[in-house]
């Protein structure tokens, strides 16, 4: 009455076709990146509205402090120094509120359905985390362009840019798992918003985004050593502006943070559906 199946039934729903776990992981990551791209294609407003804040940081804060010469910036113009910080910040802001989406999906019943597919919790979380990084990456690109327009000197080295993309992706993936972890604990959109608001600025200020670590008081320096944002910015600064940085350490910290974040938040995922 409504048409026949063109392909015999048995072919696809084959329980024996168990994929290796890493293939499943890669497949889910690609799938959720694809979903995120589709969503952005349908609605780009967020991309624009979220560009306003970094623009203000660069134009107002950046220009003013450049004029003041108050912050040591390693012999580079201050605007150059802070641009990677603002790029990382814009990616951070997108990621840190990503948990809102999962709470919304939970309330709408979407999460239940996703979890009933052959997708282990860790693969779902990893997929979501890297999906979030697609959005972060786009946001960061907007700020890179903005910085270039404001005259920030960024040598156009394709290899450096490629590595910078990986850095931003890892950073965003970590911060979105942080957000997903909080979501798994508070289970409520408003509380997640509140906590997100409360932690973004401390993360930002306890990093080298606006000033070098060396000018911080000792306690803030200590605090900043456990802040992944510090390592993300250190790497971006080295890659985009060309200041000295410790890339191997930065990468190690970001990768470990991502793995920890994915493990922790996938443990909490069950709480969201019960």
């Amino acid at each position, binding site marked *: 009455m409504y048409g026949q199946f063109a*392909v015999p039934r048995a072919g*696809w729903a084959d329980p024996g076709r168990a994929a290796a776990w890493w293939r499943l992981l890669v*497949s889910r990551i690609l*799938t959720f990146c694809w979903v995120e791209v589709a*969503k952005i294609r349908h609605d780009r407003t967020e991309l624009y509205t979220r560009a306003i804040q970094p623009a203000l940081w660069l134009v107002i804060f950046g220009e003013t402090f450049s004029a003041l010469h108050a912050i040591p910036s390693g012999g580079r113009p201050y605007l150059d120094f802070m641009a990677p910080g603002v790029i990382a910040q814009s990616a951070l802001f997108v990621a840190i509120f990503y948990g809102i989406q999962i709470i919304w999906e939970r*309330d709408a019943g*979407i999460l239940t359905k996703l979890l*009933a*597919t052959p997708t282990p919790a860790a693969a779902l979380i990893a997929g979501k985390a890297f999906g979030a990084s697609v959005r972060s990456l786009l946001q960061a690109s907007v700020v890179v362009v903005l910085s270039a327009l404001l005259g920030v000197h960024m040598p156009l080295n394709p290899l450096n840019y490629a590595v910078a993309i990986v850095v931003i992706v890892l950073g965003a993936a970590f911060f979105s798992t942080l957000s997903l972890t909080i979501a798994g604990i508070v289970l409520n959109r408003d509380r997640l918003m509140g906590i997100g608001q409360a932690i973004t600025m401390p993360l930002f200020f306890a990093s080298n985004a606006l000033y070098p670590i060396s000018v911080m008081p000792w306690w803030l320096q200590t605090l900043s050593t456990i802040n992944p944002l510090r390592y993300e910015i250190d790497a971006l600064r080295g890659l985009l502006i060309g200041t000295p940085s410790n890339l191997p350490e930065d990468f190690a910290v970001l990768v470990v943070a991502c793995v920890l974040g994915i493990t922790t938040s996938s443990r909490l995922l069950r709480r969201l559906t019960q």
Partner: protein
Amino acid sequence: MPVTEESEPLAVEAIDISKRFKDVVAVDRVSFEVRPGEVFGLLGPNGAGKTTTIRVLVTLLPPDSGQARIFGLDAVSQTMAVRRLIGYVPQQLSADGSLTGWENVMLFARLYDLPRRNRKAAVAESLELMGIADARDRLVSTYSGGMVRRLELAQALINRPRLLVLDEPTIGLDPIARTEVWERVLSLRQEAGTSILLTTHYMEEADQLCDRLALMHHGRIQASGTPAELKASIGAEATLEDVFRHYAGEHLVDEGGSFKDVRAVRRTARRLG
């Protein structure tokens, strides 16, 4: 009706399943079986434990005790294999409104690991089968409630499930949309031999559509059998509603219904507009 071979394992085998949440026993030693190719209905008021039972069977919730087998596979220890056999439509309207219909189904094609070369054809076929091919490129937020339901069926069908699990599939739908959903579900059974497990609290629907039924109340199965058997057990002129009243008492609808249930139903109703 498709022919059932002796050797084919049961579509669903629930053995003494219990599940409690804190001090509430949601499901209390529930046992039933769904034969291959059968439409089996779990019938009961809100809060009877139907949804919890379903969630155990589709591997979303581990039971406290008892066993759940889907086509012979254990729902606790063989989770991934079981999931590949099932298509599940939860009670809430849960397609993603910020994606198009096509994208919603494609998402599930990817999550069920359909081979890349088959994906597009399968998605098109699924949408066609549920009669929403024309609306495939529209955002789902513009769909009517009946269309969202059919889209969800299209999602659930994408992996050619041998068992389709539908939790209150027609809740909140108007009679026309309801009929349309049923026609498509039944045609599926007819053409692909899909076994169907559904929950509902519409007695008439259960009477007309299900091969066999189990009446659930207070987390327990009070009676089960074919609609005719159940009615005959009460009296010559009995309706299914009489049967239900006999086993569950007078307070049919307002009794159970936790806050969560009510909230979910309201939310569904709101999304239907």
